[in-house]
């Protein structure tokens, strides 16, 4: 089967929700299935699952212009069209990370990612309290600011309107808006998985992931890939390569604890209440408990 027939997939998530772990797992599963090299996974060399959908370089190639000459508001409606033919030349790069919400206020009702030729999306979500703790380490921000961020309907990752950067703006909106934008869209088949299930019901969850993505889905292989990409293993591998390339400045390590329940331990009652109040519906829908006490 050619690369064209295979199509491509998105791995979408709010930041710090397990996206990278999924990509590492996919890479490892493919490596094991191919039985090519006996080498251990190299984090900075081998995680080539595909370009991030917000890559400026990729957009420039697709659009045929220097995207720095377009405003973010002009770019959003173009981005969805931009990828329509990208899969033609991206053999081997079939799993694209996305942190954007499915649509942005500027995208004129269109998806900000291409849907043509896309076979589906895996949406990964994680308890918002734990996302706050992880973001706080990642951005080097106080917890309170991260709580505000998850509740901000205009939250976005941007290189700054005042400078270029290798990526374009990624609008995310409020955490619950982000979840809904992907989970409830009807343009792409979607598999929603919870980070907590990736941890507590790994074999089952990753088998479902592999099956959905049309990857080798033999239980033994999946379990081996899972064992090779445990958080402990990833921490060790990160040490070996001297820091994961996707780690921002000031962030000590990319693969930190990976635990669940850190938010409940580390956030104040007031912070937990704000999250529970602001994100109630979606938290309940995905069985996330918050602090709703009066």
């Amino acid at each position, binding site marked *: 089967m050619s690369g064209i027939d295979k199509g491509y997939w998105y791995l979408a998530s709010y930041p710090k929700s397990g996206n990278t772990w999924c990509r590492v797992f996919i890479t490892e599963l493919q490596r094991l299935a191919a039985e090519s090299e006996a080498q251990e996974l190299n984090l900075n060399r081998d995680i080539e699952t595909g370009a991030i959908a917000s890559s400026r370089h990729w957009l*420039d*190639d697709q659009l045929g212009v220097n995207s720095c000459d377009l405003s973010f508001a002009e770019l959003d409606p173009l981005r969805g069209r931009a990828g329509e*033919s990208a899969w033609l030349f991206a053999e081997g790069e079939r799993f694209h990370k996305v942190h954007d919400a499915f649509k942005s206020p500027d995208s004129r009702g269109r998806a900000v990612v291409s849907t043509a030729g896309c076979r589906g999306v895996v949406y990964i979500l994680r308890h918002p309290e734990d996302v706050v703790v992880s973001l706080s380490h990642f951005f080097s921000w106080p917890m309170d600011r991260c709580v505000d961020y998850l509740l901000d309907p205009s939250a976005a*990752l941007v290189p700054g309107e005042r400078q270029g*950067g290798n990526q374009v703006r990624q609008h995310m909106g409020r955490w619950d808006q982000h979840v809904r934008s992907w989970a409830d869209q009807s343009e792409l088949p979607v598999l929603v998985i919870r980070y907590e299930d990736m941890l507590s019901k790994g074999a089952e969850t990753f088998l479902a992931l592999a099956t959905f993505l049309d990857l080798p889905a033999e239980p033994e292989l999946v379990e081996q890939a899972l064992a090779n990409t445990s958080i402990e293993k990833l921490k060790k591998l990160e040490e070996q390569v001297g820091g994961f390339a996707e780690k921002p400045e000031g962030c000590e390590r990319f693969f930190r604890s990976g635990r669940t329940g850190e938010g409940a331990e580390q956030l104040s009652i007031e912070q937990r209440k704000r999250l529970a109040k602001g994100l109630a519906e979606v938290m309940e829908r995905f069985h996330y408990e918050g602090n709703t006490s009066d």
Partner: protein
Amino acid sequence: MHSYTAFGLRISSDLPLPELAQDLAAATLTGDAVPEISIAEGSHHDWPAIQLSPHSTPTLAMAAADWRLELEGVGWFRAWDGTRLSWERWDDSVSNRDVRTFLVTSGIGALLIQRGALVLQGTTLVREGKAVLLLGFPASGKSTLAWCLLQQGWQLLSSELSVVDAQGLVWPGVQQLKLWQDSAVALDLDWQQLPLVRRGLKRYALGPADLPVAADPTPLALIYGLGRSKRANHKSEKEKPKEGPITTVEDASSSSEQELFRAWARKSEREALLKLRNHAYQPRFYRAMEQEASLFLQASQLLKRVAVNELIAPDGITKMRTALEAVDLLNPDALIREEEPLSAVEVEA
């Protein structure tokens, strides 16, 4: 009609293009100079049907000698036969400045490729009669570095795209630097007085009237690929939240290894060739217009004359500016040399 010369070609245009050098000969001897490239407004409804190359995209319709760009909200552009470039506004809200931003980059770039030119994505500067080409993708810091070099007595030959001919000469091209606001501020420019690249962008344009420019084709002495230190990449602009302080490279901590320019030479011919291929101006245009073989041939010819070096600038505009004072880019051997690192992180695909 306005007349200009750029990339060794005489250009006539119904739209003023102040980014290009005026064609003085045409201004004085009206009528007898036939332009090699004509730029004029036209309707995309008049475009004939073409057999699309599979390398076309939803915004780019391309065939061997025909290139069409539909840029929603901005306009339609068509370059064909290596001689004609037409443009049409999306609607009345689109300004001349909006149109010419894309005419003098993608539009002229496509025409040059149709003419069989070697067009590289980079900015070329001149000193002591020698040209140095800074290769780099958009947002890799070419313009900021170029502006700093201009303060040291260099002249701008061609920005964003540079044409190198078979004799190894780089031709004067578009002579404009576009600086983001953070760069303009860090460089102590009075940015409020500078024209915007386009309305709504915090990006400023310095044209040939504001900059020291070179007027003659100049032999290419050296190529530098602009890279980023692994550390700067770790800063990962992609993961910067919106409300965050606009963390420019300025905020990086002050470890001394980051305060100097570092360089290494591409020793392998294959690597150097790939570097040039990847930094052709819009490789997709080359593929779709069936010019890729010619690109490889010209790039390998060029490598017989000119070495490709990688250059890592210090993190931070102020540090870069300071470090530049101690550096002579015409003498790469005097730069801090490094072995080609295995894990070299470049601003690449």
